[in-house]
Structures are given as C-alpha cells and as structure tokens.
C-alpha cells in the first residue's frame, strides 16, 4: 500500500525536521567553537603570565589585543567570512566578532574614499554595541552610585 501525501504537506514535514536538526547542530557548533575561543584566551593569559612576569590585568589586555589583531587580519585576508557563516555565534559573540564587523565594514566601503567611505562606515555595525553599552552603563552606574550615596 502506498501512502499518498500532498506535496505541500510533505514539504512542510521535511522542512520541520530539517530546521530542527540544523538548530541543534548550530547550537552545538557554537558551544564548541565559542568554548575553544574562550579556552584559547585563558591559555594565552597563562602563557603570558608565566613567561613575561606581568600582572594578570596586563596579560588580559594583551590577550584581547592579540585576538583583535588575529580577527582583523583573517577578515582582511578574506577567509573569516566563511568561518563566520559556518560557526555563526561561536565567532560573533567573542571580541573577534567586534573586530570582524569593523574591518569588514572598512573594507567594503573602501572604494568610496577615505572620509565618506572608510571614516563614516567603520562603526556601522559596531556602533550599536558602543551606543547601547554606554547608555546602559551610564544608567546602571547612576543607579549604583545613587544607592551608594543614600546608604
């Protein structure tokens, strides 16, 4: 006996299963890649701590600079975009995503000139992060300060 199914119904079922599988795989990939990035960061901090005898805050500053340098260089060389489409949030949420958005915006608008191209578009994507970060930090900081003053 052959079960006859309408094409539209079949498409709906197939779509549902496909989407479900991709979601689980995407989440797992993001966990793995994001975790590896975090672990690499801690590893770099410890290597700097034991080899150069600097304080932990200095070491973490150097670690962030190293990550931004690597992400900018890989974006400029052109293969970071492929990695981002594959791993999505695993690379977009760490500081590498911030550097990637700035470098790719600068490269995309390069041929419109240094002022109206690079200059006004560098913060196109990273600007929202800075704006909402500063506004929320100001509001929360004011609340915290006022609580400190009152008590």
């Amino acid at each position: 006996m052959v079960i006859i199914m309408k094409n539209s119904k079949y498409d709906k079922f197939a779509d549902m299963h496909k989407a479900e599988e991709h979601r689980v795989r995407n989440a797992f990939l993001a966990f793995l890649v994001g975790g590896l990035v975090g672990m690499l960061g801690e590893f770099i901090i410890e290597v700097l701590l034991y080899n150069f005898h600097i304080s932990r805050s200095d070491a973490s500053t150097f670690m962030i600079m190293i990550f931004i340098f690597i992400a900018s260089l890989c974006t400029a060389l052109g293969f970071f975009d492929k990695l981002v489409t594959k791993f999505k949030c695993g690379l977009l949420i760490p500081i590498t995503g911030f550097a990637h958005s700035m470098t790719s915006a600068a490269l995309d608008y390069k041929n419109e000139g240094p002022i109206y191209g690079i200059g006004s578009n560098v913060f196109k994507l990273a600007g929202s992060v800075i704006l909402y970060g500063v506004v929320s930090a100001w509001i929360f900081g004011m609340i915290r300060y006022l609580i400190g003053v009152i008590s």
Partner: protein
Amino acid sequence: MLLLNSFLFCGFVCMISQIILDNTKLTPGHITSILVVVGAALDSFSIYDLIIKYVGGGALLPITSFGHSLIHGALAATNSHGFVGLMMGMFDLTATGITTAIIFSFIFSLIFKPKN
C-alpha cells in the same frame, strides 16, 4: 581548572545566543547589543566580577565583558571624582579594545583589497 571554566562559560554564552538567533527574528546586531546591556546590568551589582574571578580569561572574551568594563571604569572613577566620574571613566578600561580595533581595521583596510 580556569581553562575548563573558560571553555564552559564562553561556550555557554555563544550557545545561548545561537539558540536565540535560530528561534527568533533577531539579527546578530540585536543579540550583541542585548548581551552588552546584560553585561552592564550584571556588573552593576558586582556579579560579573565574581564570574571573572572563577572563570578567568573566558569571561573577558564574550561581548558581555565590554558592558562590564564600561560600567566598571565609570564606577571606579566615581570614587575620586564624584558624579562626574561616570562620564570621565566610562572608556578607561575598554579604550585598549576600541583603539586596537580602530587602528588595525584602518591599517588592514588600506593594505588589503575587498575580496568580493
């Protein structure tokens, strides 16, 4: 131990944002902005400092630490300058990250050509 904690925490943040990205209509721009606000909110009552103490470098890499360092610098400056310190110290700790990103993106955009 810090290595394992870094792996788990950074992976956890990335996984949560990937789940939000897949199941809602929010774009990566929305999610990074939300995470920055979450980081600032967590640090306003010193919770993020505790996380950094137990997690180490893994807590400094996700974009939540950007909001954390914004408010951390602002609150540190209020100790010596009062209310004006909120504006004076806002970029004290994040200045390295932003400056490095600006300089390298400018240099690389001058050197390299866009691929597509």
